[in-house]
């Protein structure tokens, strides 16, 4: 055991001598290739001395004594353990230092960068060797032991830290503590292509290897001169070459290619970053050109805009308001909110006109510094209040639309040097009052819809305020629009029993409804105007109504059928049941409720496969001269007029005569939905049973999307008179 120990000790000694020799004369020696391989093992081996030295210190200072005193009688071998730990530490330390020296001979490591690492590393090797050599002495003297431990540890920590800085970069350890504020504060308008777009990429993705401390390939990319100088393989770019030279060649090599940059395993360039480098070179690799000098369609500009913040995001530098002040001023009708998290700027919106007063506005003086958006839309703001508002010097956006200002005091706002947007819509401000706004340096947008400014004035104003975009909004008097149809308010009277009143409605103020009851088109002059009282009817009627109003195109005609309910059959039987999807009860034919365009409403009966054959029974014989069937036509949904309609009558189901047949005209093209009542008039006849037949279309016409298919027949009400 002792032999091994001695051998190891001697080896360590010899290695230390070699180390000393190399440190002193190293610069004049060339490292053979084989040793380069050994040198590259430095990052592997260096962890051993670190751990072993820590362990040695802990062992020597804290553990060895305690263990030594426990086992009575037995030879205590704890010093032996301590020896071995210390010796291995010394051996690995000197080996690491040697390897480090070999590694430092390779290209790319600048002497000044590794200076401290080199000397501390050497110190660790010597210190640990010395400690081992005088370990027995150190074990006797408490102070000496502590000194040895502390100095070795200090050396190893320092050397380790220096080494890590070479590999990972200077700020690696402290980076997490530095507040990350890398978000570019430069706006796209001011940004310089190189400084704000290209350099950050080089810093992030290239400079960890190409810096003053570690210049791989003799290339440093920190300054303009260094970039222009290039590395050992020559200049970085050649603007005349199709591939723009070395840098782009390397970037574009496949990742598994050895010369690909950045090397595999290091953070790679994103597509955008590659594109920025490429287009910067293509644009002439200028170090001073600004983004704003590029054309809008330039790829580089488009990329820049995506990366840099747009110029309209403002950074506010004033101090935040006192939180308690904000809390005190904030309530449900005066809502104060910061523009965003951590922003000192405040936005204030007023809600609820009845809660507004001039005091509520002037109370905001407590936050006048921070107030940048003020919304007073529809609040009863008076002319004198503008003086208060003028005191809010940092305002960017002010909404005064539909307030009660007259414009007389508009000049007050001139003191708002930062105001960008001003809305005055819905106020009676005039041309003359607005001219003062020319003196507002920051004003960009002005809303002037519905104000005292005439269209002629507006054109003049636009030329007087060329830097301000004026939004004049929509002018109703320039447009002729069509009125909407009158609305039947009481549609439950479509089927009525006794005399009834039709009431109509139109929502547009001042619209006049004119109507006819004889089926003719309503006329704006001759037809009667609808009055509050409604229209009285006592028999089945077709109403046509139309709305008129000055300045509008008259409405489409509302056509509505009103039916006087007649006889109601006591029972109804269908020879073949209606389609189960659209099958109400037989009573539906007499329920007084008319169906509309919604054929699924349950108010309609539908037949497709089978014809409708409804047999109506009357307990007492009745005299009939007119039958009306109300049917639906909805071509898009395959609901067509019937092929043929028949009315049969007689004393019993087996004894029926055909009273009348109707063949409805089939539509010849696409048409909107309509309902139609088919009237069957015939000489009066006494009957106990009526049979109504409706045959659906067997083949849809060729122009129909469903040509050749069967059509539907829909019916909802029957009137018998």
């Amino acid at each position: 055991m002792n032999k091994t120990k001695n051998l190891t000790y001697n080896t360590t000694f010899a290695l230390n001598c070699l180390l000393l020799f190399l440190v002193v004369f190293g610069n004049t020696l060339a490292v053979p290739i084989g040793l380069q391989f050994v040198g590259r093992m430095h990052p592997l081996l260096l962890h051993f001395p670190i751990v072993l030295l820590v362990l040695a210190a802990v062992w020597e200072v804290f553990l060895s004594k305690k263990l030594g005193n426990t086992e009575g009688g037995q030879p205590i071998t704890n010093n032996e353990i301590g020896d071995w730990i210390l010796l291995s530490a010394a051996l690995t330390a000197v080996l690491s230092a040697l390897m480090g020296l070999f590694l430092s001979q390779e290209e790319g490591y600048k002497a000044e960068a590794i200076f401290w690492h080199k000397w501390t590393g050497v110190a660790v090797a010597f210190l640990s060797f010395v400690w081992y050599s005088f370990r027995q002495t150190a074990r006797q003297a408490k102070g000496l032991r502590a000194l040895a431990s502390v100095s070795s540890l200090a050396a190893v920590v320092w050397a380790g830290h220096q080494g890590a800085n070479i590999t990972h970069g200077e700020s690696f350890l402290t980076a997490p503590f530095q507040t990350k504020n890398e978000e570019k504060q430069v706006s796209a308008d001011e940004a310089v292509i190189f400084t704000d777009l290209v350099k950050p990429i080089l810093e992030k993705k290239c400079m960890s290897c190409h810096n003053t401390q570690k210049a791989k390939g003799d290339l440093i990319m920190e300054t303009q001169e260094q970039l222009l100088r290039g590395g050992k393989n020559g200049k970085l770019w050649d603007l005349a070459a199709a591939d723009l030279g070395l840098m782009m060649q390397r970037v574009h090599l496949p990742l598994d290619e050895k010369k690909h940059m950045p090397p595999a395993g290091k953070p790679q360039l994103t597509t955008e970053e590659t594109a920025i480098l490429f287009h910067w070179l293509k644009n002439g690799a200028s170090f001073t050109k600004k983004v704003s000098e590029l054309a809008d369609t330039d790829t580089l500009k488009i990329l820049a805009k995506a990366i840099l913040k747009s110029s309209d995001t403002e950074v506010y530098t004033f101090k935040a308001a006192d939180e308690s002040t904000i809390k005190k001023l904030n309530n449900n009708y005066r809502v104060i909110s910061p523009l965003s998290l951590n922003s000192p700027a405040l936005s204030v919106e007023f809600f609820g006109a009845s809660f507004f007063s001039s005091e509520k506005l002037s109370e905001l003086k407590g936050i006048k510094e921070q107030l940048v958006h003020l919304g007073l839309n529809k609040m009863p703001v008076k002319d004198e209040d503008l003086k208060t508002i003028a005191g809010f010097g940092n305002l960017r956006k002010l909404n005064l639309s539909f307030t009660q200002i007259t414009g007389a005091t508009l000049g007050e706002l001139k003191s708002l040097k930062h105001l960008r947007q001003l809305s005055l819509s819905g106020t009676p401000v005039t041309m003359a009052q607005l001219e003062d706004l020319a003196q507002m340096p920051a004003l960009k947008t002005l809303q002037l819809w519905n104000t005292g400014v005439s269209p002629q004035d507006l054109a003049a104003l636009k030329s007087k305020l060329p830097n301000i975009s004026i939004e004049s909004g929509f002018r109703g008097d320039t447009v002729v629009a069509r009125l909407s149809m009158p609305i039947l308010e009481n549609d439950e009277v479509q089927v009525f029993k006794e005399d009834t009143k039709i009431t109509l409605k139109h929502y547009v103020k001042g619209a006049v409804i004119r109507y006819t009851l004889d089926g003719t088109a309503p006329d704006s002059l001759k037809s009667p105007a609808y009055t509050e009282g409604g229209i009285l009817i006592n028999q089945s009627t077709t109403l046509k109504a139309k709305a008129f109003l000055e300045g509008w195109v008259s409405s489409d005609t509302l056509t509505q059928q009103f039916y006087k309910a007649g006889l109601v059959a006591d029972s109804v039987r269908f020879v073949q049941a209606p389609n189960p999807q659209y099958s109400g009860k037989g009573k539906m034919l007499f329920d007084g409720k008319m169906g509309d365009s919604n054929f699924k409403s349950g108010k309609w009966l539908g037949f497709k496969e089978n014809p409708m054959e409804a047999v109506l029974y009357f307990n007492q014989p009745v005299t009939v001269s007119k039958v009306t069937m109300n049917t639906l036509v909805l071509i898009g949904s395959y609901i067509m007029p019937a092929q043929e309609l028949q009315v049969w009558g007689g004393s019993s189901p087996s004894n029926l005569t055909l009273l009348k047949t109707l063949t409805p005209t089939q539509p010849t093209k696409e048409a909107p939905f309509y309902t139609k009542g088919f009237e069957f008039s015939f000489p009066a006849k006494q009957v106990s049973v009526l049979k109504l037949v409706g045959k659906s279309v067997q083949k849809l016409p060729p122009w129909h999307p469903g040509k050749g298919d069967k059509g539907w027949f829909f019916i909802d009400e029957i009137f018998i008179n």
Partner: protein
Amino acid sequence: MEKEILEHGLNINRRKFLSSLGIGIGSAALGSLLIPDLFGSKEDAIMAGLPHFAPKAKRVIYLFQNGAPSQLDLFDYKPKLNEMHGQDLPASIRMGQRLTGMTANQAKFPLAGSVFKFKQYGEHGTWLSELLPHTSKIVNDLCVIKTIHTEAINHDPALTFFQTGAQVGNRPSFGSWLSYGLGSENKNLPAFCVLLSKGKGNGQGVYSKLWTNGFLDSTHQGVQFSSGDNPVLYLNNPDAIDKEDRRRMLDKVAELNGESYKEFGDPEIQAKIQQYEMAFRMQTAVPEVTDIRNEPKDIIKLYGPDCLIPGTYAANCLLARKLSENGVRFVQLYHQGWDGHGNLPGEIRGQCMDTDQASAALITDLKQRGLLDETLVIWGGEFGRTNYCQGPLTKESYGRDHHPRCFTIWMAGGGVKPGVYGETDEFGYNITENPVHVNDFHATALHLMGLDHEKLTYKHLGRRYRLTDVAGKVVKGIVA
């Protein structure tokens, strides 16, 4: 039992207690390893109720065109389809795309060119069909995204995906996330309002699960406004109860609820108290906002006279403007009737008559009031429609089935970059450049509202959820 109540009262249970105990120091160390800037940056401490960074827009109005409008008849101009009208869709284009049960069994997939005429409009040369005359006037304000795509192929899952970020209906709605992330602006109105209307075309249902708060606090639920005299149901005082009585009653109820909260500690009790209070304030605020009778005649001409008829799309657009103007964070409209499986040209004509003018009017109206730059307006359906015909094809008429691979929506206002984004192939079937997934759409919309979609999270059932869940990236190309 008492123990459970006590624990609940402390608002802490065994699992929470143990896990927080165990996590303590360990998580700090681990966390700093995993997230290097855990100690360095303050911005991780996300406070619900504030934008993460300066927002472009403060409010959203989402004009949802329920049933899926045909992009090929409105925005995505494909003359190739007219050229090849009636020919079969090449398999190389379809690439095995799954089809709905409605056309999967069709023997042929004849291409159907649009019957409508297209023209280019505005600064960006945006193609629009003749069905959108009013939209063409505001086209300079629109960002038309032609390459949105989704994963679902049927209405309900697709709609649910758009509205909640997941196809199953148990997640919080888009509006609820915004209400949670940004809080309400006007405390007298709900932060999230829903308005429904129906066109004459083939319709598809909408259900309240689309505006659910999911696992978020129920104060973030969407409030449906109905047409007619009572826009918000049960808001008015019953007969013989006046405002003072109501106030006294609410105070007493709040007191009792407060007691109950002290005892049980259920956060839902707090939510309830807040909702009662808001309802009380809404009694004044809602009639003020929803009264459209006093709108000037210019506004009626702008939106069209239908805007005075309660329940129409035009009326809802007008109402949406009024709500938004009054600080409602998210106004969600649904307009039904776009599901053109058959007779599409006829139906879409009607749908556009109902919606084109009012949609455009909303943009104009917001702009003239100085509100467009702070409001994000979104128009679009849940998926697109196929380039081939469903059912019989004629020169004038065709039907189109569901198409999830590409369709068109538009956005306008707050922070949106006007123009046309993305391109589809000449068949209008596949995306050729700049695809925008539904998750990307959500991420971008949140971004415009000043929210980082990866940081707007809520912990539920042991993990953090986002509107975009585990996907989505901000589409920089549509952000101004």
